[in-house]
């Protein structure tokens, strides 16, 4: 048999439990807009019953606090998709800037278009064929050469500038990563010391938020270790943070390009293929831009050396046989020839339109120069076709990245929905819980008043003065 005082204790535990549950609910409601917050459910646990003469007598209920509703596996999947999506987004942004250097020309707007410049340059030689000693036609050759050289060198300079700016962005992202890994290590330590065996609630929310931000910046693999600890490595396998220790990524300059290191290992190319914002930035900096720049260099080198060779294999208007001079500056190597391309010839009389040993009115060397447009002098293609291939390669990579980006963004949104469904605070749920706990509290307090009355009656049994 129970006692009245034990009943009162029992109901008191109920009142406390309901109050604690209300606290959990109000915490949920106050964090309703916080996307990093994981909703908590009050953890009801029945107190151990007391056995008297073999009879089990209940001793009430306790709320031991909120239990965060999260699925670690789902969270990890979301992080992995975010890595891929962030990488694709930053790559697409860099490629979009890159492709703006190669806007398609139309017959009405051709300024700055390299393809048009190439055609116009060789056309001036065709015109020169019909009037080899005409000064205006010779001037036209030089001025179209100047336009071609300046558009190519300007484009190359723009590509180099973009590469430098991406370099800067990469460094910024890496310093953000280092800040996050330090914060993560601290949270790890706190979690391992305060709740090594169960979900750490708010601390776990903080850790998941750090991991989510980190995975948007850099590709990571998450490994749960003992006592609720966590190790984070790059997708390439290098350790970034382990339990309470964070390892910073350092940087160094290699041939004018910033490389990144963990300890002694150069992780730059691993980072480029690893995902996260830095993956996209480094892919653009180390692959997309260099590929395009290399093609431009090939184009510049091919045109400059071939035209210079032709000009030095003819007779100019002054009668110089075979040493009329260079029209373009002579590049020593392919790399860098696009940015350095200029026209060095200033005197139109030095254009060698005539063949060696022929009179100055001969046009066979002008014919030879014009024919270069139809010969496979650059990478096995004519200059115009080579440029066309450059455009199509770059355009395809933009197009592919756009498609991939759309798909990845959609899949991230889907996973986000799944995570939010589980962990997001639903105001409707909280409102009905509020009502529930409120009524339970009212019921318990009602029972308390009744028990109080019963207690008073018990005290008053067989007593002349009444107690109320």
């Amino acid at each position, binding site marked *: 048999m129970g006692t009245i005082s034990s009943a009162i204790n029992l109901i008191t535990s109920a009142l406390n439990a309901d109050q604690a549950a209300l606290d959990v609910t109000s915490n949920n409601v106050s964090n309703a807009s916080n996307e990093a917050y994981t909703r908590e459910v009050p953890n009801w646990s029945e107190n151990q019953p007391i056995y008297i003469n073999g009879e089990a007598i209940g001793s009430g209920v306790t709320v031991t606090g909120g239990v965060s509703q999260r699925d670690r596996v789902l969270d990890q999947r979301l992080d992995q998709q975010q890595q891929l999506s962030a990488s694709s987004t930053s790559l697409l942004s860099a490629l979009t800037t890159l492709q703006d250097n190669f806007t*398609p020309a139309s*017959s009405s707007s051709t300024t700055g278009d390299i393809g048009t410049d190439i055609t116009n340059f060789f056309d001036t030689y*065709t015109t020169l064929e019909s009037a080899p000693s005409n000064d205006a036609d010779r001037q036209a050759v030089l001025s179209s050469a100047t336009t071609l050289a300046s558009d190519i060198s300007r484009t190359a300079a723009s590509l180099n500038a973009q590469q430098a700016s991406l370099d800067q962005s990469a460094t910024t992202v890496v310093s953000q990563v280092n800040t996050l890994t330090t914060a993560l290590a601290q949270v790890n330590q706190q979690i391992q010391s305060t709740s090594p065996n169960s979900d750490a609630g708010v601390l776990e929310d903080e850790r998941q938020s750090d991991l989510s931000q980190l995975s948007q910046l850099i590709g990571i693999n998450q490994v749960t270790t003992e006592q609720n600890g966590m190790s984070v490595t790059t997708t390439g396998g290098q350790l970034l943070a382990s339990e309470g220790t964070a390892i910073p990524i350092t940087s160094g300059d290699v041939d004018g390009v910033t490389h990144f290191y963990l300890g002694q290992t150069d992780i730059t190319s691993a980072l480029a293929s690893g995902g996260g914002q830095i993956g996209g930035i480094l892919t653009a900096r180390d692959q997309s831009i260099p590929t395009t720049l290399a093609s431009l260099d090939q184009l510049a080198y091919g045109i400059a050396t071939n035209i210079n060779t032709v000009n030095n294999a003819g007779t100019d208007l002054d009668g110089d046989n075979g040493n009329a001079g260079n029209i373009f500056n002579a590049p020593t190597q392919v790399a860098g020839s696009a940015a350095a391309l200029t026209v060095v010839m200033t005197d139109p009389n030095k254009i060698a339109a005539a063949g060696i040993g022929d009179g100055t009115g001969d046009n066979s060397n002008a014919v030879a120069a014009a024919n270069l447009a139809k010969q496979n002098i650059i990478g096995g293609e004519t200059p115009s076709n080579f440029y066309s291939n450059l455009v199509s390669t770059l355009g395809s990579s933009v197009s592919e990245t*756009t498609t991939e980006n759309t798909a990845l963004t959609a899949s991230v949104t889907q996973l986000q929905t799944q995570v939010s469904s589980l962990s997001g605070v639903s105001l409707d749920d909280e*409102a009905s819980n509020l009502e529930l706990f409120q009524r339970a509290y009212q019921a318990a307090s009602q029972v308390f008043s009744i028990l109080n009355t019963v207690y008073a009656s018990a005290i008053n049994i067989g007593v002349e003065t009444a107690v109320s």
Partner: protein
Amino acid sequence: MRVDPFYVAVNLSGALDQTQATQQQLSQELSSGLRVSTIGTDPVAAAQNVTLLNSVDQDDSFTQTTSLTQGQLQVTDSTLGSVVTQLNQALSLADEANNGTLNSTDLKSISNQLSGIRDEVLSLANTAYQGVYLFGGSQTSGAPFTLDSSTSPATVTYNGNSDVNTLVAPTGQSIQLNIPGNQVFTAATANVLGTLNSLVADYANGTAGSGVADTTALNSALNYVSQQRVTIDNSIGQLTDASGAATEQGTQLTTVQTDLMQADFASVSTQYSLAQSQQTALISVITALGQGSLFNKL
């Protein structure tokens, strides 16, 4: 089953942003008239655009060049025509001199007239068009023929060379642009100027001399010049044909290029109005769904 509480804020507003971006892109297509405004929109079309514009520009440039070249060829042709006229005159004078009915005064007079014709032909051989001597081969900066009257017969020296210039059409066809003077006027088998000089010398002292033989030579020389003229006429014809072909190809390719790159206004307008109605629908859905929670009813 639980529902994502952030659905309206994240998913639907994301979709709304997407429709706005689509509308922006479509209206840009409408205003610029271009379907392919960046190479990423259609890489294959962008690459084809480069090669099409290359051909169109080549054709345009060639058409412009031919109109200038035609002038030079026409002048060459009419010069040769004048030479033929002069030679015909010379022939009739020579025939007259050879028929044996003229006295020595008359023969000397004919010699003088032939001398005048020779001077005229010499000047025609030294014709220049826009500062370029037409019959010097590739030595076009100075007069190709000089006369030395101190000898009898007078001698003509050719200062040019035998070089021939050709113009290459976009189709690859080579069109001859000139005939060297030593081929037209002082060829070994039909020496126009040499024959004229001989005839002048023949009748200069009042006798027929070897006038008959030289007249026969002059006749072959005249036929020879007419044949040379055919070469130039052919070039003029080829040039006209090549120019016409280039213009036609240029027009065709321009049409192809325009079709490739231009926006299809009908389909873009339809897509635009679809995007607009989608946007309106999304806005109503967002408004309806964001109507609050159970808390409003408590």
